[in-house]
């Protein structure tokens, strides 16, 4: 495979849904995972970068889909990370249902995927803050009309951020942002660009595809012969 491949949003939906399923995530959660990755791609990110980490972590048993409701949010088991695949849908359901105005989610393996789930569902007026296991701080603000900001202290790369306790809360008018680098993004503008260029994915794509491939069934001479379609040689 070349160092870089250009793919479509539809391919992300197809491949990532099955990649999630490939690490035994329920199909409904895998569907949300894929839509989150589409949103990341629409905003110019290589979605395989943070997702491969989340999938690896689940596959290796370092993360778990088991989630507990706590007084102020969610947590996973003590000995494992909480998988972002599960955390993202749980947070999303709370936020969309406006059941909580402040949530704390402990020890999430890939926090950018939680952000992506909110973005993919056009959440507005919320912010997400976290400090990860290497001490890097991030804040993501969701404004109106698909505009959003990433603010970071520069100590880490957001796609690689890991092991975070996240706070999700309403974005107030007087909120003081984390001081640091601000990246301003407009989902609609970025998506228009991406639709013209496709999405560039890099070295981690192979690993994503390998998880996807677990959903494929090995072909045998019998299954080949009985497949739909014409004979193996066909003329008329």
């Amino acid at each position, binding site marked *: 495979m070349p160092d870089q*491949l*250009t*793919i*479509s*949003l*539809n*391919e992300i939906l197809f491949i990532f849904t099955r990649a999630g*399923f490939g690490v035994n995530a*329920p*199909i*409904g*959660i895998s*569907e*949300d995972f894929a*839509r989150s990755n589409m949103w990341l791609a629409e905003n110019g990110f290589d979605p395989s970068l943070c997702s491969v980490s989340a999938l690896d972590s689940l596959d290796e048993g370092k993360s778990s*889909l088991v*989630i507990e*409701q706590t007084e102020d949010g969610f947590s996973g088991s003590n000995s494992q990370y909480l998988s972002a695949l*599960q955390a993202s*849908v*749980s947070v*999303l*359901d*709370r936020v*969309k*249902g*406006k*059941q909580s105005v402040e949530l704390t989610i402990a020890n999430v393996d890939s926090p950018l995927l939680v952000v992506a789930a909110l973005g993919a*569902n056009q959440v507005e007026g919320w912010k997400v803050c976290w400090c990860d296991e290497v001490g890097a701080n991030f804040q993501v603000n969701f404004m109106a009309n698909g505009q959003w900001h990433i603010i970071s202290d520069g100590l880490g790369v957001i796609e690689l951020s890991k092991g975070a306790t996240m706070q999700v809360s309403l974005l107030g008018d007087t909120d003081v942002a984390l001081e640091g680098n601000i990246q301003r993004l407009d989902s609609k503008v970025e*998506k228009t660009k991406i*639709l*013209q*260029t*496709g999405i560039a994915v890099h070295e981690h794509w192979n690993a994503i595809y390998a998880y996807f*491939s*677990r*959903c*494929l*069934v*090995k*072909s*045998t001479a*019998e*299954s*080949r012969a*009985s*497949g*739909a*379609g*014409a*004979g*193996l*040689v*066909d*003329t*008329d």
Partner: protein
Amino acid sequence: MPSSATLDEAMMRRPEQVMRLDRMGSSFPTRLSFMRGLIRRMSKEQWKFEKLRQDIDENGYGVSVYAAHTPKRTYSLVAFTQDIPADMRTDRVIAEVWDATFNLFDGVPTQDDIDYLAKNTPKQEGGRFRPSELSLARANKSLRLFEHIVSSLSEGKQPDVDLVASVGYIMRTTAVYGSGKFGCADRAKIAEREECKVSFHMELLAVYLIRWFTIDVVETIAKQRGGDRAVSLEPHIRQFIGVGNSTGLGMAPFLLKHPVLIHNWVSAKETALARVRSLETPIKGSLEAFTHSVRQVAQHLKEWRVADEIQSARIEQLEGEVAELSSWCDDESNLVKPYPWNGIYQFAENSFSLECQEMVVSLVIEPHGALVDDLADTMFSTTAPQFEASMSLTRLKTIVKDYYAWATSIDFSLGESQHHFWYYSEDKLEPRFGSKGVDDGVDQEMPLAISRDANDLNEQLKTASDDITVGEFALQYPQFRHIIRRIQNTALRPYAEVQDNLLGETMRPLDLLRFKLAFFGASKFDPKSDLWTRISMYQGAPMPDQLSDSSHDDWTFPIRPQSAL
């Protein structure tokens, strides 16, 4: 007196009647079908067609470019043709080579674009494409018709119309991909363009241009071979040549994965039928047009010959029923009364097979373009399915009870109810339909078991408290998230679901294929097994130079050229 809207609603057929596999597998194209709508648009907007390039040798091998100029933009078919070994010519997805391969390009390709595509298009799934490519397709020759037409024309003769009628096409496509496949443009790139809004219009534009290409290629080769002696096809023969297609299981997952879209398609067709049935007095000339079309369809049926025993028997029965319908229509008292279209439909429903009932649906809608054609513009969807976590579980239970009784009533403890499963093969992701206990891959089953999943959900819901939300339930039982989302999004869209068990022992994927192909506008269904079928597309449709003819929309149930009968 009821309002017309109320009457239309009362005349709508029920989902449990319409969305059953046996009826779906008896579908025919209507004037709302996508090919019909696309041809009307081409004619109305006066699209221009232009051959931009044809660099082919004496065998027709090389590269060609054909353009469709719409009022706002140009789309180009880039075609590559090559010699392939006879023993590698297969219509299967797992094929490696094809006689012709194509892209529909967004705009006019530069030489650099053509050079790029020359390296990728012939590889099909093995190539990589870009957002400038809207569609990817391939086709194989009908060897006997291709050579027959070339040699006839090169000798200054027209081809044998019997042979043309028996095959119907010079090439048959074996896949037409779009919507982001293999790197092609995502649908979102073009979804807002008027000419692209309706489902599959760009893929079917590619097919229309492929049809033109196949006819142009045989005429060009004949001219090279025969020189001054060579002639072109007579226009009426040219118009009768369509594009073939072999369709397998790839279409089935699409239907099941896009329930909202399917609802919109079926709702448009059923609304059209209801509007016609609600007419108290026929529109002037429409009954005459109908009785004429019944006679024409009898000829169409004589020409629709297939090897498949089941379909042959159905066609034979249909011929008898159409004759009976024709006689019934000859009795004026059956038609000259209030609500004549409803009378015709009811007569068909009470008297004839599903195949005939669905043909009558197509025939009664046909003369009512002014009444129904607006519905063709509703046959798309932009809705992304949402999971509504705040819905109460009581509400979800009610929806399942009210709208999914067809699923919850199936006994899945019986082996015959879970006989089959759907999976993707590692062989070029070819979709396959496995049998449990026979085929490997149950663990990798595609999530298409809608009825079983709804059934399982229903069982779990019985044990759950009414006082929680769907979000809380899904937190506890995440394995149901996908089916809950589906149910929430289809509850108010009654035609969204195939109301049958798609895993059952007697299930025929062919029924799903025919249903979808009829919406495309395909004709002459020619089943080759329960898993795949051949069809004709655009047979009888106007060629680019005929789009301004007043008869440009009169090509339903095509019959062989009259002058040759």
